């Protein structure tokens, strides 16, 4: 299995770096990432090789996204309730709002170029940090080498931001490629919530040509910090997207992540969570909803290194029509991670004979000093008895099925602490249903 990219060249990297007037270290970082990208296999783990599939992906010759976009931007959130908003359309920052109150603090949200200018010292630590992405992930390296747009969010220690921060990436230009980075840093004891969205731009189908979107999200939570992060992807059918995220969680830090995958030709996402601090935790819910011919390839890695660390991951996939999903995961409890508590659940519902689902919930446990190490998975269909029961109460069959699918997903959506994000996920689930 190969993955080549015409524009992944040193010339392109130099050009990107030069255009942006980047410091030498960043250029070097890009070049190193480029070499790593070229050298690495699509799937680093023998464990998953047979379950990683890029067939039909045809983005080798896509051109970098044009920056000349001039269309009207539709605000996705118009409630004005956000603490801050950044909206990047086809690679260009089109909207940036930060609430009055936040501006009084040492808070930063802007493009990486602004960060480099304003805080050159911090920028080096954040943008070129060597361990901020999984070392064996080809696509994280792709974004790191070729990003043309990056957002930096930095929250000072002990600041609690109660309202959510919205980050939006709109993309969909046919035959184009956009590589992006999101850098999130929370100082010790701070708290923030981020809703990051990957939304379609333009009319939709790409005129038969595929487009490529890459994003690397690098999250650092210092001791005692808590981040609620919701990432929703709902690209159009012609978009192939590679989303790589890594979160490093310090002592008593807490990473609550919710992910929704709702569109695109192929969405390949990989999330790594490193629980390095004592008492660090990750709670994650994931909804994958496939229709048409969409394909989802979602991998979750959690590494327990700190004592008393907790991981709780729950994924649910609903597959309609010809859609396919692979939910993969490895929870590793390292020898020094005493008393770790971990759970990984992967549940799929297949609603069509043409749909397909794979689940590989794996565990690697190096110590018996565990509080809990458990995983579970199931693949099931709608329970016809339940459908019948609802029909006997006067609900038409299709409505009954739809209600039951919602019932399958609701418990995990309810776990998301942000009302805005819940509402949005419910709306997406609702519109996604194919009768």
């Amino acid at each position: 299995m190969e993955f080549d990219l015409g524009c992944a060249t040193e010339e392109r990297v130099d050009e990107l770096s030069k255009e942006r007037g980047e410091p030498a270290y960043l250029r070097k970082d890009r070049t190193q990432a480029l070499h790593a990208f070229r050298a690495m296999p699509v799937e680093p783990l023998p464990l998953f090789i047979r379950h990683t599939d890029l067939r039909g992906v045809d983005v080798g010759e896509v051109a970098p996204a044009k920056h000349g976009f001039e269309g009207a931007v539709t605000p996705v959130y118009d409630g004005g309730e956000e603490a801050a908003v950044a909206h990047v359309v086809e690679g260009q920052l089109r909207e940036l709002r930060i609430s009055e109150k936040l501006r009084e603090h040492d808070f930063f949200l802007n493009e990486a170029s602004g960060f480099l200018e304003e805080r050159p010292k911090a920028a080096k630590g954040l943008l070129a940090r060597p361990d901020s992405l999984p070392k064996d992930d080809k696509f994280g390296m792709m974004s790191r080498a070729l990003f043309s747009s990056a957002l930096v969010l930095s929250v000072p220690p002990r600041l609690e931001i109660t309202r959510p921060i919205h980050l939006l990436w709109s993309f969909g230009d046919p035959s184009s490629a956009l590589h992006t980075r999101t850098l999130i840093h929370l100082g010790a004891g701070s708290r923030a919530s981020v809703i990051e969205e990957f939304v379609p731009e333009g009319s939709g189908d790409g005129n038969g040509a595929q487009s490529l979107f890459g994003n690397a999200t690098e999250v650092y939570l210092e001791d005692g910090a808590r981040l609620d992060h919701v990432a929703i992807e709902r690209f159009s059918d012609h978009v192939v997207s590679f989303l790589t995220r890594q979160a490093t969680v310090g002592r008593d830090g807490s990473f609550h992540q919710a992910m929704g995958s709702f569109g695109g030709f192929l969405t390949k996402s990989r999330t790594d969570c490193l629980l390095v601090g004592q008492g660090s935790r990750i709670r994650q819910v994931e909804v994958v909803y496939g229709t048409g011919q969409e394909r989802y390839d979602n991998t979750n890695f959690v590494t327990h290194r700190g004592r008393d660390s907790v991981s709780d991951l729950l994924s649910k996939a609903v597959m309609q029509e010809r859609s396919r999903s692979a939910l993969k995961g490895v929870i590793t409890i390292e020898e020094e991670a005493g008393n770790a508590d971990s759970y990984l659940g992967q549940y799929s519902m297949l609603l069509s004979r043409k749909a397909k689902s794979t689940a590989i919930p794996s565990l690697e446990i190096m110590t018996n000093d565990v509080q809990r190490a458990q995983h579970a998975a199931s693949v099931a269909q709608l329970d016809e008895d339940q459908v019948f029961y609802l029909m006997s109460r006067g609900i038409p069959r299709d409505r009954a099925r739809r209600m039951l699918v919602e019932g399958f997903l609701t418990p995990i959506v309810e776990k998301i602490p942000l009302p805005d994000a819940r509402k949005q996920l419910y709306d997406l689930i609702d519109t996604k249903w194919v009768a």
Partner: protein
Amino acid sequence: MVLEQETVNREYKYGFRDDIEYVYRTAKGLSEDVVREISGLKDEPEWMLKMRLRGYSHFLERVMPDWGGDLDDIDFDDIRYYLKPSEKEGRSWDEVPDKIRETFDRLGIPEAERKFLAGVGAQYDSEVVYHKTLKHLEEQGVVFMGTDAALKEYPEIFKEYFATLVPPEDNKFAALNTAVWSGGSFVYVPKGVKVEQPLQAYFRINSENMGQFERTLIIGDEDCQFHYIEGCTAPTYTTNSLHAAVVEVIAKPGAIVRYTTLQNWSDNVYNLVTKRAYAYENSTVEWVDANIGSRLTMKYPSVYLVGKGAKTEILSVAYAGKGMHQDAGAKAIHLASDTQSRITSKSVSQNGGRVTYRGHLAVAKGARNVKSNVRCDALMLDAVSRSDTYPYMDIEEEDASITHEATVGKISEDVLYYLMSRGLTENEAMNMVVLGFLEIFTKELPMEYAVEFNRLIKMEIEGNVG
């Protein structure tokens, strides 16, 4: 007051070895000549030689698996591929050379045969040295003999099924087995025949740097019922031996076939085995598989549910102590509608041992109304051991009902305390909990085996207490 600790015998009971003079042995290492030599010695038909050469050529082409366990130390050139301990397959123990008979005596085989077995086969290094089936079963047409003998006596049946489930190209070690196979069991139970007592085979590696490559072919005709059981041991040597067997089990419509293995290799044996069964319409394949010793085991009994309404139940048990890696598991491949599978895996790791569960559950397109249930429980007895779980579930039909559950845990302090409050020492309490954890397996064994299995586990645990 009795306050002293009970002492335990920490030695691997089967670690003894015999000095015997082999009737024939090939030179170390593998070549086309060795393959031809083995085939020639056995005076085989041309098609079998061709099959062997097919296996050999694939073995050369195929790369080593890059998953599973560490195979780097296998030196294929340092292994002897064929060792013949006696001139012929005995029909009574008197016909077996004295030293070899003594070995099997020490392993308790003739005694067990008298007590509760319907038939016994005994293999020593490359060849089957003894084979016997109860007379009334022979009269009903039950065939239980060494695989080599079966090739001569039942060439048609043999050719019809041999290598149909595991083709030479299946994997590197199946290819190797095909090239140099020798010995193994051949079982054929005719239509409607029910064999009440188990048929047992015992495989013993005696020689150092030996490769044992038995080939077992088991055919249950329509509506028959039987239980085949096998045990394996080897002496403890400083250098490694290789056991690469292939087992093919065919359960025709309505047949109920149970296959039980108890592998207790010494910790210098690489145990790389391909085991596969086809379950036809409404048949049942029960697979009970326990792995106690070996340096590395890679074994995933696979049942292909090819006929409507077929069922399988696979029970996999593994124990890994110091220097052992058990990469075991099970596969249930649902190719037909209304098929059911249940996989239960229980593993125990201790003293740096590593246990891996690797499972595959597949529901193919067109296999409607499939039900499957997988449960893996791992018990880790100390902080230096390792337990991995890699379950794969590939589902291509919407009405399948699949569940998978796994837990990894330790023995709780409170349970130990509770048992100790009833007068058991900590070790006894630990043993008791482990045996209780594995009871789901032992209760499936004939009593004599269950007792032996419990004894082995106790011995391993006590020998590995840190």
